[in-house]
Each structure stands twice: as C-alpha cells, then as structure tokens.
C-alpha cells in the first residue's frame, strides 16, 4: 500500500493526471452539450480519430502546428455536421449514425494514412508538428504546485478553460438556455418559436468541435504522431464520464478527472499487481453502477409518489 501512496503523492503523478485527463475532458464536454440538447452523440471516438489524423496531415503539409490544429477542428466538426445532417434531415437513427461514424473513422483514417504515407500503422513518415507546452511564469516557481500546474501542453490549459466556457455557455447564455430547453421539453421550446432542429444542429457541431480538440491533443501533444486506433476508447470513457456526471458541467469535469486518474493509476496500480486491463474497465464499471443507482432511485421515487397513502 505504501508503495502505491508513494506513487500517487508525487508531483509527477499529479502532472500526468492532468495530461491523461485532457482528451477525455474535451470529448466529455462535447458529449455533454449534445446530450443537453436531447441528442446523444456516440460518434465521439470516431470524431476524435479523424481530427487526430487531420491535425497530423495538415500540420505536416503546412509545417504549422496551428494550421494543423485548425484542420483538426474543422474536420472533426465537419464529421459531426455529417452526422447532424443525416440524423436531423434524413432521420437516420442517431445511435446507428454514431456507429457509422465510428466505423468510418476506424477504417477511413487507416485508408487515408496509407494513401499518404504508405504505412498503415503510424504517421512516422509524415513530418507533423506538435503544439507547444507552456511554462506559466510565477506559478512555475512555486514549490510542489509549480511542477504540477506549469509546463503542460497548451491544449491542457485550453481544456480547463473549456470547462468554464461550457459552463458559461450552458448556464449563462441564451443559446445555453435554448439547448437545455430543447433537451428537456422540445414542445415548450417550439411553442415559443425556438427551432429545435437548429438548436440540435448547433449542439452536434459544438460536440464535434470539442471532441476534435481532444483528437488534436492526442496526435499533436500526447503523442507527436498518429497511430491507428490511437483514441483507444477515450471517446467511450468520455461518454461514460458525461453519464456518470449526470449531465452537469461540474459533474462531467470531475468524473473525467476521476476516470483520468484511473488511467494514470493503471501504471501505478501495477505495483500492487493489479493488472492494467482490469483497471481500464473501472470507468465503465463505475458508469454501469452509477446508472443503476440512478435508475433504481428514479423507479423508487416514482413508485413512492403514486403509492403513498391518501390523506383524508
């Protein structure tokens, strides 16, 4: 046990916690926005994968990491747009649409990678760029906190700002109010002239935007290249985090951090001979348990309400 604590209470661990949480957090925020608009986007994994590849390709050809980031975000948002078009215009089932996006991405990225680099495994032959890490003046000199908080990848800081931005968007802007109203009672929204379809388009595009930031981080920060299936379930963890976080911004952010910790711990826990494969399932187990507790309590509440004895 001591050895475990020794691992956890190090600045290295705290630093890596933020590092591994970043992509989960981005995607979870994306899932949050679309879920609040009443439209569940399970294509997160696929959107992240596409944007990760796009970031590598665009940055390799333009030799600019920033243009690469732009390319990543545009392509991820475009994929979300395609999903939105099919589900909102053609009435494709949103879940099957998400399955299609994931299928497209897992093979499509390898297809394009192979065409451009002749390699199906990774983008080593493409000279792609990475986004910079940032030392924060003053903070970096504080003992303990400095090494934890400073020196992160720029998108890690962006992800923290994104939590604030999404919170502000959902709770403090007219658009957020409309998104939440469409998710909760679309008839009410429609009766006062709010276009449900327009809001859902917007929400899906935003979910694609945030997921693609997570994707860009994977190939232009977390790693400095694209490898096939590099998202490795982070999109699903994000959906789990959003569900566990009960669709609130704070809850989603905290659960993302918790699931990030499970990820960061998987190495640490191996010291205790707990296999990484099992630790990797923790977020999903936690989500099923969370979902179950919620469903049971909802059912109880409903039964209680109607079965309560009548006061005469």
């Amino acid at each position, binding site marked *: 046990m001591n050895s475990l604590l020794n691992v956890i209470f190090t600045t290295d661990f705290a630093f890596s916690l933020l590092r591994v949480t970043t992509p989960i957090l981005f995607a979870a925020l994306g899932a949050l926005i679309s879920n609040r608009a009443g439209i569940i986007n399970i294509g997160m994994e696929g959107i992240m994968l596409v944007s990760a590849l796009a970031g590598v390709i665009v940055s390799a050809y333009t030799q600019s990491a920033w243009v690469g980031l732009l390319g990543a975000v545009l392509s991820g948002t475009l994929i979300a747009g395609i999903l939105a078009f099919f589900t909102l215009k053609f009435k494709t089932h949103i879940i099957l649409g998400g399955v299609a996006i994931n299928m497209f991405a897992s093979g499509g990225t390898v297809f394009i990678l192979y065409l451009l680099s002749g390699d199906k495994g990774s983008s080593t032959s493409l000279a792609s760029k990475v986004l910079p890490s940032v030392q924060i003046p003053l903070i970096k000199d504080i003992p303990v906190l400095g090494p934890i908080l400073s020196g992160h990848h720029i998108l890690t800081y962006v992800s923290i700002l994104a939590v604030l931005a999404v919170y502000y968007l959902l709770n403090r802007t007219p658009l957020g109010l409309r998104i939440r109203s469409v998710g909760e009672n679309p008839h009410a929204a429609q009766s006062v002239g709010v276009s449900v379809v327009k809001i859902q388009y917007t929400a899906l595009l935003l979910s694609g935007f945030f997921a693609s930031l997570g994707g860009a981080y994977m190939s232009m920060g977390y790693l400095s290249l694209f490898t096939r299936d590099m998202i490795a379930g982070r999109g699903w963890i994000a959906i789990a985090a959003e569900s566990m976080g009960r669709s609130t911004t704070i809850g989603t952010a905290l659960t993302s951090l918790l699931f990030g910790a499970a990820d960061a711990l998987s190495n640490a826990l191996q010291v205790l001979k707990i296999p990484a494969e099992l630790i990797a399932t923790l977020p999903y187990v936690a989500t099923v348990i969370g*979902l179950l507790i919620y469903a049971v309590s909802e059912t109880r509440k409903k039964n209680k309400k109607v079965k309560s004895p009548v006061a005469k």
Partner: protein
Amino acid sequence: MFKVKYFEVIRTAAVILIALAIAFIIISLVSDQPLKTIGIFLWEPISTKGHIGNVIEMAIPLMFTGLAVSLLFRANMFNLGAEGIFYFSGVVASVLAIHLSLNSWFHPVVAIAAGSIVGALLSAIPGILKAKWNANELVTSLMFNNILFGVGLYLLNYHLRDAKAFANVSYKFQETAQLSKIFTGTRIHTGLIIVLVMIVLAHLFLYRTKWGYELRMTGVNRDFARYSGMKTAKVIILVHLIAGFIAGMGGSVEVLGMYNRFQWASLPGYGLDGALVAMLAKNNPLSVIGSALFLAYIRIGADMMARLSDVPSEMISIIQAVIILLISAEQFLKFWKNRMLLKEAKANA
C-alpha cells in the same frame, strides 16, 4: 399496392447501389488502374473455390451477430452488446478448448455451450436492468462491451498467454476442440451448419411460436402487447438471453473454427457489423444469410483488392458507414414513397 409493397426492397437495393458507386468513385480516385481494381473487387471473391470459401468463412460470424442483433431490434431494444459478448464468449470457449480433455465430439460442444451460456447470462444483465428499472439498455450494453473486453484481455494476458509464442496469443487449443472443415480446399467449418440451424430455429421461433409472437408484438407496440395481457418485462429479458446466447455461440464457434489459439488483442468488431447485417436484413432471420454473405463478399473483395492492387482494404469501412447512414434513414427516398402512395390513392378513388 404493388409498388408500395416493394418500396423497402427497392430502397435497400438503392442503398447498396449508392454504396457500390461510392466504392467505385473512391477506387477511381485512388487507383492507378481503376477498371482493373474494380474488377478485382467485384470478381475475385467469387473467382475460385478458395475465395468463395473465404466469403463464407467470413459470413459465419456475421450471421451469428446479425441474427442476435436482429432479434434485439425486433423487440425494439437498442442494445449493441453483441460485440463484447462475442469477444468474451470466445475467451470462455478458448479456456475450455485449452484445458479440457474430451473426445472430438464433446469437446467443441461443451466449449461452445459454455460460451453460449455465458453470453446469455451476460446479455441478461442489461435486459434485467432495462425491464426492471428502465435503465437505458444502449448505454449499459456499450459499457459492457468495454468491460468484457478488459476482462477478456486480462484473462488472455495473465492466464492463457503462451510465453513461448512470438505474439500475444493463448496456448494452443486441443485438437479435439477445433471444429472440423466441411469442404476440402476451403476453411469452411461446421460452424456454418450450426449457424444455419440457428437461423432456421430463430425463424421458427420468431414466426411460429407464441414466444416469438410475444417478442414481435412487444417490439411493434409495447402498449398493445401489455394491453393484450403479455408480460413485456419477461419478453425483454428473454430476448436478451436468446440474443446473448447466439452472440456467445458466434464468438465460440469463430474461435474454434478459424484459429488454433485465441489471438484477439482488440474487439473484433463483429458485434457492430451485426447491427449492419441486421439492418440490411430488415431484422428477418432468414434474410440475415443474404445480408451477411453480401457484407462478407465486399469485405473479401476489399481484401483481395488490397492484396492485388494499390487500394487498401480499409476502404470497406467507408462503404459500411455509408450503408448504415442510408439504410436507417427514414426519410431517404421517402418523398418517392409518398408520391407513389398519392398516385395509388388517386387510382383507387
């Protein structure tokens, strides 16, 4: 009457044609010799006995998962858990294939039965959560996919792994456990017979038994089923058990039929492909045969194309995505159906 009745068939055909057209366009853009490549894509899978064998081998797992998903969709259950169950039951069957010593008749039977039963039990969990507490079966089943994969991979890496092998694979299966080949010159195994029997049984179950009737009515209109006196919660749990059983059987059969070691280090994807097969088959058990063969055909075509030309086989996932997006699009070609309906209404008036 005539035309509207065949609308769904026409629509499915249109989707397949569009998907193939997109395949041709991609090939034309990518390949140096587009015509030759298209020829390979379309012709090679059926050119030799061996290749036809490949198509059928590939179709077997797709039929299993397609059948499982069809039944779930038939009951209006949005459950994509066949993926994880297929994988995990493969692990279970592998354990028995490695560690049991039985004769070559009983060994596969026991291993497959164990895999199927484990699949049924695992699948029942989201079913019970749905039936009893209305917990969203989609989310639980998706989470279960990842959980089962993690546990399965753990078993592979810590308990089944053959340290002497070069790759991340299990010990060799006992020869008694492996399914025998049924056509010389191909690797088609007895799993084909098993899956065809399952499909026929599922067809009989769905259309000819009272339980299948309950399942169909619950899927079409749960209020109606309840009003008629059916216990819909039980129906939902039952369909999960059956679908899990079939998906689990698929994983077990695939492992024992095609490999001599367990070697999936990632989810093989057959569960999600099963959703595509089910959609193409309009959730009809017998049609699952055709739609699985079609999917296997274009996949083997893509594999051949990758081997013999300059276009990578991953093109196929783009085609699959297009098929899913269009086949489940209610509004796709709907305007045409409406026009036909109007015409018929006028003709009848």
